[in-house]
């Protein structure tokens, strides 16, 4: 269970996140939506310790994890992906995921064993489940954009997270790619019983897989509930109708 209470972040007088609270019950799939600049990414960065909130707190299974370092949060079972694709470009696909296994299983302090053969099976199994096993030997930078996004998901999954935060996992993908990626993410989340929290632009996708939706607007929560509740919400309609193009 991830609890976010009253988070506030102000940049030079600009209120990026102004008192956001939300719950992500264990095993649930939740989405955060909102127009550009609504504060979604800032909220993610506050939750994952990338930024320190000015006020409020984040609790993971009752434990206060507000503003702790990302590498510590990782150990507590929170994985994340980034909006801007964020991989290790000059390592191979295999090495990318393997590095995450090595780090997560605490082997990083080992100076004398060749890394080459460690966690081979785990890495290949994970690459199989995200559909990249055929590209294992390729340099990550040469993957397509969609492939890199999948790889990023793989990096997050290698940490065997209980909670997974995905910041626009389909940014820059075509409509077909988006649907496939989301199907993959939802399948993996259900298989592993993950608590999933993600942000997304494509409303169809959001309403199709989420159990709970939180709508942000100008740094505040304007609606929070099941897809049906959110669909009917007056404030949401106003915000989205106002900027429909």
């Amino acid at each position: 269970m991830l609890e976010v209470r009253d988070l506030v972040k102000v940049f030079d007088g600009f209120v990026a996140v102004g008192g956001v609270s939300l719950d992500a019950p264990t095993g649930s799939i939740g989405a955060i939506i909102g127009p550009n600049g609504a504060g979604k990414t800032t909220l993610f960065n506050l939750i994952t310790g990338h930024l320190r909130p000015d006020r409020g707190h984040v609790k993971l299974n009752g434990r206060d994890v507000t503003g702790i370092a990302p590498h510590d949060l990782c150990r507590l079972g929170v994985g994340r992906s980034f909006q801007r694709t964020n991989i290790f470009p000059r390592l191979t696909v295999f090495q990318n995921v393997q590095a995450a296994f090595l780090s997560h299983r605490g082997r990083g302090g080992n100076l004398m064993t060749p890394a080459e053969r460690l966690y081979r099976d785990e890495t290949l199994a994970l690459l199989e489940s995200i559909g990249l096993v055929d590209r294992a030997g390729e340099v990550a930078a040469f993957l397509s954009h969609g492939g890199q996004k999948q790889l990023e998901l793989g990096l997050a999954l290698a940490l065997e997270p209980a909670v997974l935060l995905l910041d626009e996992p389909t940014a820059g993908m075509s409509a077909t790619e988006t649907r496939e990626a989301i199907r993959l993410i939802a399948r993996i989340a259900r298989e592993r019983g993950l608590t999933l929290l993600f942000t997304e632009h494509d409303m169809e996708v959001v309403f199709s897989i989420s159990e709970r939706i939180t709508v942000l607007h100008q740094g505040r929560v304007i609606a929070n509930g099941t897809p049906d509740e959110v669909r009917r919400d007056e404030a949401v309609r106003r915000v989205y109708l106002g900027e429909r193009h």
Partner: protein
Amino acid sequence: MRARALWGPLVLVAALLVPALGSRFYTFLANDVVIWALFATSLNLLVGYTGLVSFGHAAYFGVGAYVTGILMKKLAVPFILAWPAAGVFGAACALVFGFFCVRLTRIYFAMLTLAFAQIVWAICFKWNELTGGEQGMPEIPYPDFGWIERVGGSVPLLSWRTAEYFYFLTVLLVAACLWALHRIVSSPFGRMLTTIRENAERAEFIGVNVRRYELAAFVLAGAFAGLAGGLFGIFNRGVFPDFAYWTKSSEVLIMTLLGGMGTFFGPSIGALVLILLNQQIVSYTEYWPLVLGVVLVVLLFGFPGGIAGAVGTIVGRLFRRARGAEVRGA
């Protein structure tokens, strides 16, 4: 893969055969190259593997040289203790300086490493009682080869001059250090360093404590630079403040870039090429730095992977072409 594993022993044997050419001068050059190869490889742990550009790596080289020199000359400590001490002091020094340096990034990191190195240089330059100050510390003794000389004197193949015994010792010790460094960069620890080089932010999010790993790399690099310095002081028959001066830091950085920081043996190749070029070109022209500058510009623009990278690319291309021909032929 197996063919590649043979290169190390092959080069080691070739290096051990150099004195058999019978030229004192070649042995002297080879000794210089071997020590600088270790120094440059230690720097590459930072530059090539972790992505940290240090402008002050000579500090640890200098500290190592003074530690071994002072222990052997003033306190008559045997080499077997005085040399490891260079590594220990190099590491300790790197731990203290690194603690501050890894808190900064990029150019600020580089500038702070330079600042610390200049402090080390200033201390060596001014602390007359301990370091001999500006005059340095000449006449560092060779390790005691007494028993080998007694035994070897009667066996034809084993009778060499002291400088040559020291050369053999250097080759074996450097080979051991390079082997250890190679193990380190291929280990999970080494892999974590490359994730930091590739993307420090992402490394944090796969659970890597970036600063701690950077500090560990800094300390290891300092230790091996110290060991290289310890050997160099003896080889040079004296230790001088300019060992820690910024020009030494830039020299070793140039070797690393020239040879290629993307490969393990790149910096060693850089050391070999730079020292040979220096010897050769100086005898033709007084404009050696000009030639070096041109070589560097060409390399940096044409082959950013350095000599090792360029050779790798060319061999790769030839190999592919040969394979292509085979396929067409079949």
